């Protein structure tokens, strides 16, 4: 049972002052084993805050991040799953599933976590899954002002992943879950 937090696009301090208080009260240290961050934090203070939640932090660079040392994309293996992270502003058209599928094949991962669109999405295709945790602060994006704050918590347990989606809708936290299993012999997507 490994809990992985997928979060990103906070745009603190430029577009939002802080995480919504209801989210902050839920995110306490000691429960989460890994944090995957898609990017656009943007400042060091947010990085430090995430470090207090969990020491194992993986971040990729978003176009507004002040720290230029984050990588463009990253892969890691947790349990039986290979995860890949990429912010998504590099993938054109933004949010296009086929282009993201190309990145997934390139990184050779089972789950691709990507951001930039500030919209929560979870897609399954061709043996892989793309998850977009949305924006944790509800910051406006180039597409729309109307963004619900959201983030994702994945519970990886053997060959099964349960994805818990946390959204702040009308001031209330709504939690949904999605689960999927990795097929034991995953066919190569080439």
């Amino acid at each position, binding site marked *: *049972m490994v*809990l992985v937090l997928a979060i990103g696009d906070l745009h603190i301090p430029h577009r939002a002052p802080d995480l919504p208080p209801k989210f902050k*009260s*839920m*995110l*306490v240290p*000691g*429960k989460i084993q890994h944090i995957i961050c898609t990017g656009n934090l943007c400042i060091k203070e947010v990085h430090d805050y995430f470090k207090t939640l969990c020491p194992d932090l993986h971040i990729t660079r978003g176009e507004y991040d002040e720290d230029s040392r984050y990588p463009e994309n990253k892969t890691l293996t947790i349990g039986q799953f290979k995860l890949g992270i990429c912010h998504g502003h590099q993938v054109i058209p933004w949010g296009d599933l086929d282009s993201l599928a190309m990145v997934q094949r390139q990184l050779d991962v089972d789950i691709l976590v990507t951001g930039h669109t500030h919209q929560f*999405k*979870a*897609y*399954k*295709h*061709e043996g892989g*899954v793309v998850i977009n945790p949305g924006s944790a602060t509800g910051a406006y994006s180039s597409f729309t002002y109307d963004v619900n704050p959201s983030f994702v*918590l994945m*519970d990886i*347990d053997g060959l*099964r992943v*349960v*994805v*818990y*989606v*946390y959204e702040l809708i009308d001031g209330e936290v709504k*939690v*949904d*879950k*999605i*689960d*999927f*299993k990795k*097929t034991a012999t995953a066919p190569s997507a080439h």
Partner: protein
Amino acid sequence: MLKGKKLKLPDRLGSLVAGFEDKDEDSGGSGSVSELGEELEILQPTGFRSDRESETDDDHDHNEVQEEEPMVKRKMKVDAELEHNGRQLRHEKDGLSHISVIKTIEVDEKRSDIEYEISQKEINLEKLQRIASTGIPEGGNLRATVWKLILGYLPPSRDLWEKELSENRKKYAKLKEELLLTPSELARMKEEAFQSNKHNNAHNDTAGPLIRHEISHEDHPLSLGKASVWHQYFEHTEIAEQIDRDLQRTHPEMKFFSGESSFGRKHRESMRNVLLLFSKLNPAIRYVQGMNEVLAPLYYVFSTDTDEKNASNAEADSFSCFVLLLSDSVDHFCQQLDNSSVGILSTLSRLSDLLKANDEELWRHLEFTSKVKPQYYGFRWITLLLTQEFNLQSILRIWDSLISSPFGIQEMLLRVCCAMLLCVKSRLLSGDFAANLKLLQHYPEINIEHLLQVAQDLTPDTS
């Protein structure tokens, strides 16, 4: 004939004592602290011991012991044979082979007595208790079986054993399933039971957005709700971490418990399950540091059972016996009950009264002159059933007497504690607060049979 032997022994005292001191020097870390240069009441051949006894000037108690000496001496030799780990006893075998024939016969007799008793259809618990309180011989599964019988885990009718054991073990496995699974495992099992069909369909889709399901009852990992399975799980991780830390420190000198071998880790994991389960079933006390020490001898005895089936179910058996063992003393662990009539302070004052009834001089010296109150040394003795004061072999022997005592475990425990005080009386009388406290908190090695005999002969406190 025995008298003749008694006379011979003093001649050899010199060599024996010298031999002993050497052994003492190189027996390091056996878990109990033996202070160099201060051997005192440690097991010696009878002749030597009677010298020591004159130091402890209690009159009537020791006259009785003197008369019983031949029996006690024999039992002490029996104990000597049986203490595999007791390095301090090895020297005895060198000089006393002419008595060894007698002691081997003694052990075998006792072993066959016990085997006879437990092979009866309807076991006579009283008789078994009487034999057991003189010490259960090592080897086979005697100790494990006798403890289980006397604690009440096994019924006295042999026919019901199979049924009882398998029922209890099943119950334990069920409890484990209910309480010890991680929430994700629980969720997975539920899903597999209900939604296997739906799942298969969903996953045959090659592409498209994944279906979102509603969550019931705040059933997500970050939930702060009290009713949430996840919340309860995380609350217990703190306790689990504490248990893990303590288990690492249990009997570090023994391969059985410590070390990174899969063997040691398996045992620690079993003990962890037992303690975690206990803490979940007893939210009022949860887990208190030291419970691991009380569990250790039980688990050790049950796992080293020569019967394969019993050894592999040691976890389930030791859980039940752990609960039975702690049933009257569990209140000692609860801080809120400290000052009540069932709490530790009341038990400690009973210890004090017992000492007063048996040896007023020592009592006065401890209470008033050196102001060493029982709380300072007795707390650990009583709550942990003396597991921190002696090495494992001695603990097993002491527990033989505690468990099978007709007075009940707690009563006998108080007696043994009182006996511990009496046995170091001369040192206590000559010590001040600091010296006495140091002595009692690091109790010296001592002849266990002698200690238990003193405990047996105490006058009960009738106030």
